[in-house]
């Protein structure tokens, strides 16, 4: 199981970083989303992988999984979801304003070039 989880995290991260380095806003947003998935699975795994054991107190239980990473993941999911929504809207605004969805800034837009 460790191998499966580790490979998944690695694959998601690699794909996320690849997409993050694209020039257009849409692949970049997808890349950030994939990266977020990888982070969430990774956070989940930091409490050690345990199958079929409860995270909260239970009289019948003999072993527990760590509840804290699960709480952290919940917070991380909420935050990354909100951030992605903000990013989509800013990207949309930028695309509507400038007519293309490139994320690199040209000389002119950066205020560096001659007017």
């Amino acid at each position, binding site marked *: 199981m460790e191998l499966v989880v580790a490979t998944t995290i690695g694959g998601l991260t690699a794909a996320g970083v690849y997409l993050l380095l694209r020039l257009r806003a849409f692949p970049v947003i997808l890349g950030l989303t994939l990266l977020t998935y990888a*982070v969430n699975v990774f956070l989940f795994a930091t409490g050690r*992988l*345990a199958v079929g054991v409860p995270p909260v107190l239970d009289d019948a239980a003999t*072993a527990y999984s760590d509840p804290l990473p699960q709480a952290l993941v919940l917070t991380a999911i909420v*935050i990354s979801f909100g*951030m992605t929504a903000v*990013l989509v809207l*800013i990207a949309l605004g930028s695309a509507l*304003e400038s007519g293309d969805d490139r994320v690199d800034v040209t000389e002119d837009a950066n205020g560096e070039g001659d007017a």
Partner: protein
Amino acid sequence: MNHWIIAPVVLPALLAPIIAFVMRHDITLQRAASLAGAVMLTAIAAGLFMLSADGSVHVYRLGSWPAPFGIVLVLDRLSALLILLTSVLGLIVLMHSAASGWDTRGRHFHALMQFQLMGICGAFLTGDAFNLFVLFEILLIASYGLAIHSGGKARLKSGLQYVIMNLAGSSLFLIALGTLYATTGTLNIADLSVKVREIPVEEAALVRVAAMLLMIVFAVKAAMFPVQFWLPGTYANAPAPVAALFAIMTKVGAYAILRMHTVVFGPDADAIGSLSQDWLMPAALITVAIGGLGVLGSRRLMPLIAFAVLGSTGTLMLAVSAFTPYAATAALYYLLHSTMATAALFLVADLLLARRESGDLLRAAPATVQNGFLAALFFAAAIGIAGMPPLSGFLGKLLVLDAVRVADYTWLIWAVVLVGSLLTIVGFARAGSLLFWKSTSAAFAGPEPAPEEERPPANTIGPMLAAPSVLALASLAALTIFAGPVSRHMEATAEQLFDPSAYVTAVLADQEGTKDPSSKSHGDEEAAAKGYDESGAEAGTPSEEGH
């Protein structure tokens, strides 16, 4: 427990939704509420500053949960100082935004401003690493809104880059925290400090990875090489008052490195050693160089100032990277100076650019109204940021240069910092002469009569509009005049920072008045509900079954 400790977070957090929902149609009401909030925040921050000045460490336990499990806010000299700086800067920036009308050029300016202040104050106060992440996100999401305030093509483009950069940084932050939790089983900063020091050198690989990942994350916030690319574009395109407030944002990164890499990953921890210093110092040096070259190469005023900010951030991080109490003293003094100088420069630039027809392009143009007054303000602010006498930048840079003398390659550091300062001076001298001297002659020589009388009277700078910039410059003068008492306080602050035992004892040992976790009968649901709120859950250590 002193409930005033959480007031700098709660006050803006309550005020912001009221401004956004109740007062959204009335800009006068918004201004009044926002300014009143900032004045109250400053008063509270001053009170907390007095409270912490005797060197005591005050801990606020949210919900009275005992320390490694519940979230704590910690007030010591460093956090009190930075909250005071934040609130004063916030007040100055709000005054400028209201006087210059920037807050009417888009919606929800004041609400976002309050959320921004809440996030910054919270980040300075929190004693929990995951809570630090959450508060970073709060201050970032408010800054996204502020950076693209009033819109425009260039602003949205650079805002988009800023958001992407910081979202990638946030993912890295979570990976770092996950690694740290997996290694130590805690996220409370005081508890981490104890646990990291217990890790033997042979098993230190993972915690070293976590330390470096966290450093990269904070370097993104502080805008250090190699992750500084977002800063010039964002600062140059953001509305000027927002850029002035962002002066404190790079300092949040500097603070986080100062806190985490002394209290938790300090040089005295065997597992870390001189790792932080080895990487931070070269990165800071390159940042100084990039800042200097950027100032020289800029053809517009706003990017020029942004690169000057980059240079001063590099100087600040250079002092931080020495990781000695004396260097931290220098760093803190320079931090105060750099924040106020940056803010002053952006505010003066805003006054100037609002009165020039050719925007922020550095070329000769007809003289502005009150050319002499603006030139004097710009001159003073430029002296401040370049680090020339008589203002505090000179003293700050002198302290920094003296503090890094212990390193092996002192000559290299001195050369880079001094040449960087020279480049900054040359860049600002060129910009100033183009903006003010040549402009006057161009107006004389111009074929058309100077359009002085066509301008509406609102275009002249009244006392309300000039006050914030003058206040920021006056604070630089005050920093110079009271350099003795200020640097003595910084010295005490740095000593407290480099002796984390008081911090750890205050958080972990003195826990009267907290709920005793062993005698709690109403366990499960409440623990789970609390756990949602982050590290309040009962099980503080990872269970070992999964191995």
